[in-house]
């Protein structure tokens, strides 16, 4: 019992001593600051995209670059699938994984997900001048094939038109992320098809690093992230 109290006292003292609080269980923040930031990227446009030559682009890639700049770090990109990147992140071979991760991602046993920094809605939107009843049953709606929204639309009774790519020129209601509304000149219907809380993943127990990343992410505003996503969509 006595050593427990001693441990508590030691923890308090190190806090009072002006060290960073909380501290990493390892040394991630110290290593990254002025060093190398190893970022795992999994493909999820427009959040992230890895070109054939290995160059990553996308909204979260831009954000990671900003974070690295802030910490005076050089980025080393490591593209891969989530199942390949997360175990590497757990063992601190990577410092950060980005790729449109959702707060409901099933990786919490391996890694630590940050506090959600932005919530993006997926909406059914219509070209200007078109009127569509709020009830979608029987209405033809265009949606990108192979996405969860196909099922969501079907549940609402809509007549699903699966498309290889949504361009906004389909002349029917389409399912898009809210960041595309302005670019495509569409008007969203009243209710959202789905909402996603976006997070990044960091190694578990690297709490100083996690707090640093979260502080950076929480400073971002919703319009800012929307703008980055729209830019990423517009890029070839």
């Amino acid at each position, binding site marked *: 019992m006595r050593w*427990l109290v001693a441990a508590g006292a030691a*923890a308090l003292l190190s806090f009072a001593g002006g060290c960073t609080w909380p501290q990493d269980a390892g040394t991630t923040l110290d290593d990254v600051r002025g060093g190398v930031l190893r970022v795992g990227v999994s493909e999820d446009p427009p959040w992230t995209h890895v070109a054939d030559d290995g160059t990553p682009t996308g909204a979260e890639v831009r954000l990671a670059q900003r974070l690295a700049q802030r910490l005076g770090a050089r980025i080393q990109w490591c593209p891969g699938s989530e199942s390949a990147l997360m175990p590497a992140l757990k063992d601190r071979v990577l410092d950060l994984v980005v790729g449109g991760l959702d707060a409901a991602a099933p990786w*919490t046993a391996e890694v630590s997900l940050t506090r959600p920094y932005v919530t993006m809605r997926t909406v059914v939107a219509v070209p200007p001048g078109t009127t569509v009843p709020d009830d979608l049953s029987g209405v033809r709606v265009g949606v990108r094939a192979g996405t969860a929204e196909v099922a969501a639309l079907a549940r609402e009774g809509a007549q699903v038109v699966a498309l290889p790519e949504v361009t906004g020129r389909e002349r029917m209601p389409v399912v898009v992320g809210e960041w595309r509304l302005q670019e495509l000149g569409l008007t969203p219907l009243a209710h959202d098809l789905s909402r996603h809380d976006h997070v990044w993943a960091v190694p*578990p127990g690297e*709490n100083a690093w996690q707090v640093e990343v*979260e502080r950076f992410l929480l400073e971002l505003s919703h319009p800012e992230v929307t703008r980055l996503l729209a830019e990423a969509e517009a890029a070839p």
Partner: protein
Amino acid sequence: MRVYGRFELPPDKAVLHRKAVRLEWWTIAFFAAGVALLAVTLGQSQAMKAAWIEDMLGVVPPAAFLVADRYRNRRPNDRYPYGYHRSVSIAFLAGSVTVLGLGGYVVTDSLLRLITRERPPIGLVEVFGYRFWLGWLMIAVMLATMVPAILLGRAKVRLARQLHDKVLFADAEMNRADWLTAGAAVLGVLGIGAGLWWTDAVAALVIGGDIMRDGIRTTRSAVADLMDERPSVVDGSGPHRLPDELLAAVRDQEWVADAWLRLREEGHVFIGELLVVPRPDTDRLLDRLATLEKFARDFNWKVHDLVIAPVDRIEVDRDDDAR
């Protein structure tokens, strides 16, 4: 002799008992609030999960007490000729097993976390526009739940001793376990903040071991009660003095040549048989037996439902060292 008599606590004990019932309702309210509060602050942290599950289990002993309270005073009837006092013993067993299970859970959970070298992540939180480390919020919640647990636990231990109520005692143990784990979680979170990932699991391990020891002791005591062990004091630390005192007092009666007594505990009360050997040429034997029954009841409020049988001699057939 009057049978199927209702058992009532003496007035001063009845007041204490009503107080205990009130305390138990408060305990349930407090645990419900604790569970809700922790559910909000829990986040992704594994560190607080033990404390949360503990709060859920913490409802079992007071609930067992309150359920038993509904039954224990019912008058004996043809179907339950011994009355309902045992409901208290059953509640005691339920409470004890809960404490034991909780200790076992905390120990295995923290051992697993140590073995897998699990590093608990604690990030930022935003409350009313203020951003700060989630660990501080966890510590605040833990400290807030500790205070009522300490106060309730202390009040209950005192009442349990006065009422000879083992359920209440097991519940007080549970409250003690509760604030100890909360304290361990506070130290654990502080350790995590200092970058020492293992403090959390180690603190929980030590506390879990302590809770498990309590659970083993009370469970043994509860099982022994149901096995009709001789009455013991409320914390199970030794035999109760009442049977020996009563037997001595009965033997002191001038018309009693010899006597033998066995008592068992049924909840608050002691129930059993008393054999007496009257001296030769004792007159008015029935009157004397009736007086003796009243004497035994008045001897202590816990003596209830004592069957007295006059016999011509008592042979104790004890051929081994079983005691």
